[in-house]
């Protein structure tokens, strides 16, 4: 019995050393807001490519949701598709294929909205991701960032995005931006200020040739 004691102790020590290692890789939560207002619906094919790139990058245990930005975006009804990937790789692949189909159906049937409530969309995204509580939270905004609220909608409220990474993607220039580029810059600065004052980090990605870099 004494002969085996050192081996048993060594095995136990090895097991304990394994348990006390660094923390396991954390899951990721991604919420993509797609602007469906006016002429921006023409950019939806790019959004599809972006969604496919994100799906390819996400893994088992990660969460992903795609929501549209319309007149009032602070609503679960605006979520086009959402998924939390299963632990089993085969199920994850199946979920990715289903998700892609849902998004394709949405893109075919989408109608342009009259107004653009980006703030409401971000609030909804924060709520969704906080509920999922992944290790890393990312909100992607596929929009020109021009907020256009319907009369009566209150959105001048601070964003609570502490610990979130907010990435604006494909921020197209409007006709008025071309006339006065300061409008575009001011728009970006305003959103950056709002996000950073809410505790989040802000990034703009306009080069869609390297979609894999969107998630960092």
């Amino acid at each position, binding site marked *: 019995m004494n002969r085996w004691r050192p081996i048993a102790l060594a095995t136990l020590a090895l097991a304990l050393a394994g348990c006390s290692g660094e923390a396991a*890789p954390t899951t990721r939560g991604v919420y993509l807001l797609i602007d469906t207002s006016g002429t921006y619906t023409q950019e939806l094919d790019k959004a599809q490519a972006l969604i496919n790139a994100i799906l390819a990058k996400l893994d088992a245990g990660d969460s992903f949701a795609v929501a549209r930005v319309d007149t009032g975006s602070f609503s679960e009804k605006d979520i086009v598709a959402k998924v939390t990937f299963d632990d089993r790789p085969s199920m994850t692949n199946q979920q*990715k294929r289903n998700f892609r189909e849902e998004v394709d159906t949405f893109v075919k049937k989408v109608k342009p909205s009259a107004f653009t409530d980006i703030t409401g969309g971000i609030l909804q995204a924060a709520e969704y991701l906080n509920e999922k509580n992944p290790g890393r939270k990312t909100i992607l905004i596929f929009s020109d960032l021009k907020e256009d609220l319907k009369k009566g909608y209150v959105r001048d409220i601070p964003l609570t995005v502490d610990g979130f990474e907010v990435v604006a993607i494909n921020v197209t220039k409007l006709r008025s931006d071309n006339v006065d580029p300061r409008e575009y810059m001011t728009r970006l600065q305003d959103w950056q200020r709002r996000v950073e004052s809410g505790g989040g980090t802000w990034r703009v990605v306009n080069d869609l040739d390297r979609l894999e870099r969107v998630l960092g």
Partner: protein
Amino acid sequence: LLPSDPVINFHLIARPMAEMVGGNNFIGSWRIADIAALVIIFVEVSMGLFLMESLRITRLFPVIGALPDKWRVIMVWITLGLLTSLACVEAGLAYMREILLQDELATTALLRGEGGVSYGNQFIWITTAAQMGMGFILPFALTFVAIPLESFIHALRTVLGVVLSGCLRGLAAVLRLAGDGCRYLGRLLVDLYDVMIFLPLWLEQQVKAHVARPAQPSPTPKGTPKVKESLS
């Protein structure tokens, strides 16, 4: 070749293990799927070890070798049966690995917009069969780990003794070097102190010598004899 056997074995079964125990569960920084694959390999190695012991090819456990022949044969059949079962499990996992791989490739192709492209071809069964064959054969190949393991354990005592002796010699040399270093460093410090203290000591000596020198008698005052004379 023997160390590479468990490694190949591990890669064959680690991916499909994620399908059974989940691909996103961790113990510390270790994936449970990887741990499960390692457990299967260790069980196979131990079964192989017992098989070799029962066949009296190796003699790591004298108790097994000393068993009556009847019990030893029973043990051979039991371990062989378990080993065959594990080999079948591995072959199944290797088959599953191929299916998962094809599924993943198809999904990635679909997401890249290459839906029409098929990664499979009419010869895919060859790789599948090869993987299954490897999955079945490698556990039996692992049993032969027992032979080098026995040699290793027998040689371990000598090797450990030599290594320990070498370490102690090295340590002695280092300590001797450190001791000599300290001794000479002490001498050096004393010499340096001498250099520094020489001047103050010399000055002190000079001052003391000056103070200790006896004072010279002073010349007689002029009026004294006259006084003496008038008094007399």
